[in-house]
């Protein structure tokens, strides 16, 4: 009898808490996985697809689902470190197989440049651009909005006449950085 009573009491308590938890999970449901948004915020948003995913958000989703954290070439070591901190995993060296082009080799930001006299106006690059940074229409010369270009490289391959190339942004006083090593300014004759 006592055993039955104990089972009954414990069972009813279990049912009560179960119901409570069930209600809470419905009532306080979090729509999106917040870790994905946090990861997405860490990624460089070049939308270059070098990680093998069609954009930064999908890669963030994949990392949240257990994908390797070292596939973001434009982000480099910094991003890997940040992701490792967030996910609580070991920092891994950048997976070189996911870096194509010069993006990983040089820190200098690059943007696409259309050699306008060669452009035939095929609109292939416009379709490839993940951030709509190319202006143009069929049989009209195209051009890049430099301020919007993320330097992802995706427009270079589709060009049938190879008229797009990646160029480093020139040094201006707006993006110039103080460099301790150069403080003894060389005087030109």
């Amino acid at each position, binding site marked *: 009898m006592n055993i039955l009573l104990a089972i009954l009491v414990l069972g009813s308590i279990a049912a009560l808490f179960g119901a409570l938890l069930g209600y809470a999970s419905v009532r306080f449901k979090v729509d999106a996985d917040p870790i994905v948004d946090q990861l997405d915020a860490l990624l*460089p948003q070049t939308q270059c697809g070098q990680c093998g995913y069609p954009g930064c958000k999908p890669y963030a989703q994949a990392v949240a689902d257990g994908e390797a954290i070292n596939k973001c070439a434009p982000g480099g070591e910094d991003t890997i470190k940040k992701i490792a901190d967030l996910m609580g995993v070991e920092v891994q060296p950048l997976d070189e197989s996911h870096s194509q082009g010069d993006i990983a080799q040089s820190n200098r930001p690059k943007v696409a440049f259309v050699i306008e006299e060669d452009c035939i106006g095929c609109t292939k690059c416009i379709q490839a651009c993940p951030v709509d940074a190319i202006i143009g229409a069929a049989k009209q010369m195209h051009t890049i909005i430099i301020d*919007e270009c993320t330097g992802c490289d995706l427009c270079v391959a589709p060009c049938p006449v190879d008229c797009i190339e990646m160029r480093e942004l020139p*040094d201006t*006083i707006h993006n110039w*950085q103080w460099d301790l090593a150069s403080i*003894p*300014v*060389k005087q030109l004759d």
Partner: protein
Amino acid sequence: MESVIERITRGHFWDFHGGIHPPQQKEITSSKPIKQLALPKQLIIPLQQHIGREGDLLVSVGDEVLKGQALTASTNPMVVPIHAPTSGTITGIKHSVIAHPSGLSQLCIFLDVDGEDKWRERHVCSDLSTLTNHQIIEKIADAGISGMGGAGFPTHIKANSKPDINFLIINGVECEPYITSDDLLMMEHSNGIVDGIKILDKLLNPAFILIAVEDNKPKAIKALQNATTDIEKIKVCSVPTKYPAGGEKQLIQMLTGQEVASGTLPINNGIVMQNVATCFAINEAVRHDTPLIKRVVTVTGQALAKPQNVWALLGTPVNFLLEQCALQPRENVKQPVIMGGPMMGFSVASDLVPIIKTSNCILAPSQKEMPSAFDNQSKEVECIRCGQCSDVCPSQLLPQELQWSAKAKDYPQLEKLNLSDCIECGACAYVCPSQIPLVHYYRIAKAEIRQQQQLDLKAEKAKVRFEARKLRLEKEKIARQEKHKKAAAARKAAMNKSTPEATGAKSAVAAALARVKAKKAAKDDSSDNNTAEHNQTVNEATTSVADDQKSQVDAAIARAKAKKKLKSDKSSLATPEKSTEQATTSSAKPATNNESPADAKKAKIAAAIAKAKAKKLNKGDEPAEQKNEPEALAENTKAINTDKASSSDKDNSTGNTSSPSHNDKKAKVAAAVAKAKEKAKIKAQSATQKESLPNDDNTIKEIDASEVSQIANTDDANTGDTTDKKAKIAAAIAKAKAKKLAKDNKSSQEVLDNKCSSKNNDETTKQTNEST
């Protein structure tokens, strides 16, 4: 507020945290008047001399410009125009090293001075009251005035502040060592400065105007006091000398006791601050219509023989100023030139760096004053945590903490330590016993943080654009699918419904289908017609492909007849009428055959019968020849069937009769055989013709026959599409047979001759000879 004014009138001021008292070095230049310089040969005028953006060019290379003429313009409020400092010719618009610590190049206008110094037309305004505030601000903006104290913020924006202003502070502190340009300006042009202040008073209408001057400039204070005696609103404040009292936030704290919160502007506290030189420039612009084209520059340093303040046109290269002040260069070492003061200035990268609106000092220190920057580098040692930097920091920051974080590139920590509040005054570096160039570390870190912020902004923008694009593509896809679905549904509905529109659509579809069919039929027809035309005579009425086959058969029959005729002609030359009659019937016969497709079969059967009869005839000799044409049709088959060849043809005929469905093929084979035979015959005939023409009639008949055979040949060639393959096979067989026939022909001809017992016996023997 009253207490503030009371304190100020009593000469009591607040104090800001920290600060240093470096050696003044102002006496080098403060005792000499401002010198008017000769015009330099060339001016290099950078398009951008202030914070903001460069304007759009108004001039091009080769243009003659007058003094005061605007060179750039823009409607953007953050753009300040530049003007030609003197008259001359523009010889180039290209990149040149500018007054910036980076030593980078920017677009500059190169102006070759003509020496005439000819002004553009000016409109001097004698009465300020005739101008509205808006007009005054427009004049200030058009004159290209930006803050001349150092930051270079566009003045017309600052002078257009809307909210109630408690204090307008005129900054004449000039706390940095060596610099005396504002001091001299206040001494010599106090009235002009006060007039400028009056204009600002009109625009901003502040409660009080405070002119702050350090107490180490008694002459300037005196001059300003004399100029403002009749104005109650203006107070000239002699503030204690301490570096960096001239900093905006520090001066506000000193005068009013208020602290400007981090990340906000003084305007939030109801305070506007202007430099004295800016006030002077405002007066010049508004009253005398003189744009900002020159400024007072302190050219100083112990490397100069004649250090002094000069009126320098904007764009004057540094080397010209140094020359004018008698630079005595160091031996074997490049003379370092610093633009700005020793605390906050920077080494210029080139002697050709021009004076711009914010350049207040050119410092050419001697070896003693400032050992080479290169030697300085190696002297940095580890921080000893003495804490002196924290004591002197006017912004109450923790410089040594900042330095560690900056070295570790720990930017979040730097932001936590309020690096952005650092005014880069250099006080910490000045007192540092370890000679750590602290400010440089901060500058690097600041630039990095700014860069990172820009990247973050860009990334955010890219993200938004990426998401927007994704959304758009998705929408387009859905829209497309919906459209297809709708179109499909509409089609279906149109097919099923019997509404007028639906039936209309249906009938339209049907009509289209009908059109297509008609087109196809027409095509077939035309091709048939073409073949028919080729046929010329015999098959006028050909309308279907089946007719081709029929006609083939007919042709075979015709040929057979022709042959027979030929033979019969030979045998019975005495009756030419009959033979002609035969010819006409033979040519008429195919026509009758063409009348109905069913006749084809009959004809074939008839042909088979004929063949069989011919075989019989082969034995029965003459009687067969006297029979009617149909029976005699297969005269030449009889010829083939003589002796050994008879068995194969027998198969043929039996096949024909037993299985009419295969008649087509057989008929063709027969036709081919006939064709081949005809060829052989033609050869024989041509031989006959060549040999001799003993009988005219005979030759005519022969020609007739050959004509018929030719027609038959063309008939064969024009077999329909469907029978192409068959025809080819038949042709191959025919070829094979033809070879056989070549042999047979010889024997058959002999046999024929024998049977017919013709008169032209000799001739036929010759024919056979020829054919062999």
